[in-house]
């Protein structure tokens, strides 16, 4: 069983997001291990990009901090290789298309395979454009994770049929960031997905409370939290580890065994 499948096997998944290299790559390793210790089932690592158009201010700032600290794609691969000696937690990259395109799709996917990255989330590579990457990723055993948005409507089935790894439902319109209220009817989106595939479904964008984690892991298979964790890093910098552990422990305490 792949590491991603394993993350959803017999349990609901809490997925934590941090930007790699914020505040530095040693700390990224530590934060991943803290999240795992606190019960996270999967970790999403953002590769910092100069112009992250899908991100709200909190993650934009994390991208800037990481780039200012000298983080690069190659340094992230080196960190992941190191981290893989310490943990088998599934790891996926959140990266913008240009990061992969410029590195070379084949070289990038081969590096993912070699260092132990399990999946890729590319917010600016929609269904119509994924063809240039999907076969290459598949060859290297890397899942290309599809996003479904509140506006996807008749596209949901088409996207779900070709989805690999898990499906990422974008809960709200707009960019990443903490929201007090999510208005989208997630349950009906999940129902449409379920009509065509058994692949796990996780919900992200705007989630930051236990109540939301509870709600979305009841409707779907997992909940993704990003900005709330990144905010902890922005506040505590290198000392964020224990705060991340406390926060994630709280979130995972509400998860049910399937």
């Amino acid at each position, binding site marked *: 069983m792949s590491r991603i499948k394993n993350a959803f096997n017999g349990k609901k998944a809490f997925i934590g997001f941090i930007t790699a290299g914020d505040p530095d790559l040693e700390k990224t390793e530590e934060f991943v291990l803290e999240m795992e210790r606190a019960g996270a089932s999967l970790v999403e690592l953002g590769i910092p*990009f100069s112009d992250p*158009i*899908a991100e709200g201010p909190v993650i934009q700032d994390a991208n800037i901090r990481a780039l200012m600290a000298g983080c690069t794609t190659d340094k992230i691969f080196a960190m992941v290789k190191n981290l893989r000696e310490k943990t088998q937690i599934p790891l996926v990259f959140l990266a913008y298309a240009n990061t992969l*395109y410029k590195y070379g799709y084949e070289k990038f996917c081969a590096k993912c395979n070699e260092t132990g990255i399990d999946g890729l989330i590319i*917010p600016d590579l929609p269904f119509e454009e994924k063809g240039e990457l999907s076969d290459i990723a598949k060859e290297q055993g890397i899942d290309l994770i599809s996003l479904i948005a509140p506006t996807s409507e008749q596209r949901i089935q088409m996207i779900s049929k070709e989805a690999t790894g898990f499906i990422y439902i974008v809960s709200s319109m707009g960019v990443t960031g903490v929201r007090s209220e999510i208005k989208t009817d997630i349950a009906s989106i999940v129902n449409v997905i379920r009509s065509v595939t058994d692949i796990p479904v996780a919900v992200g964008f705007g989630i930051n409370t236990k109540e939301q984690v509870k709600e979305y892991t009841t409707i779907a298979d997992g909940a993704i939290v990003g900005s709330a964790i990144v905010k902890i890093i922005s506040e505590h910098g290198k000392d964020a580890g224990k705060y991340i552990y406390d926060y994630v422990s709280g979130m995972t305490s509400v998860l049910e065994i399937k």
Partner: protein
Amino acid sequence: MAKGRYGIHGGQYVPETLMNEISRLEEEYEFYKNDALFNEELDTLLREYAGRPSLLYFAEKMTKDLGGAKIYFKREDLNHTGSHKINNVLGQALLAKKMGKKRIIAETGAGQHGVATATAAALLGLECEIYMGREDTIRQALNVYRMELLGAKVHPVDSGTKTLKDAVNECMREWVSRVDDTLYVLGSVMGPHPFPMIVRDFQSVISREARAQILKKEGRLPDVVMACVGGGSNAMGMFYEFIKDESVRLIGCEAAGHGVDTDRTAATMATGTEGIFHGMKSYFCQDGYGQIAPVYSISAGLDYPGVGPEHANLKDTGRAEYVPVTDDEAVNAFEYIAKQEGIIAAIESSHAVAHLMKIAPDMGKDQIIICCLSGRGDKDVAAIARYRGVDLHEQD
């Protein structure tokens, strides 16, 4: 492979949230572009409001002074709002209205596209919000006030380099959060399909007119057609109807800033590499890891790290050539055309004039150049004075 390709360039590299909206935009555009009523309304607006057709002006003094080819200027600077931007904006704002949108948003660099968008919004009764890099709101403060006078809300953008690319980022973020009642009126031949096509179609009125005008005046096609290139909308408009005329050389002039061998440049064709950004595959100024480079030009309108995908393909196929022009050369041209022809041209357009000054003397007297004057330069006067060390601030 998805729609909207120009060779390998173009495509639709946008978040899933926008995919249905840009598909709908394409469908609506494909309908209205063949709709007689829509075309009649747009044509009336272009004639009665924007002042089209724009003149094709024979620059006799410059022709004599440079001593080579006959020089014609396509006077987009004489349009209402002072640049070619109005051609596209009237088309897109009318489309927004037909689509039932209540609100339009746009990015702006120098402020020309922002002013044009605010103008069309005022005329057609749409809400309008403009995103402009903080740096540019300072460089072009007068245009900010102009947009506000026209009833638009201007949002200074503080992310990234605080210039045009960041204004585009912020516009995309805003559009993703509110697609139902809002249309993003993109200002150049860039972004995801269908924008490069829509903007090119609305701007191609420039070459449609110029081609007919030169045939009438000279009885033959020009030898060279040239324009400045940032994202590339006036150049695409100026080139489009001449692409099929293989004898016509097409030259795009991009902003080299301090020079293509420095890091203070915005010359994407000369220094950029293939990438994916702002919804399209094209050439971008970027580092080895694909981080988009901070670019620089004296011209806020050309200060963009990418170029439209159709231009990228015209470069790949060799149909058009692209040349870098420095700040210094552009400022010299700005002053030269003012003194020679009594025309204060935009600093953006002055990049094309600068290259024209290089090539015209070596061409034969029976040869013809058409250069697009994309905008007027009133907005640039203070910046040019500063460049020459003159302080224009009035005493209190």
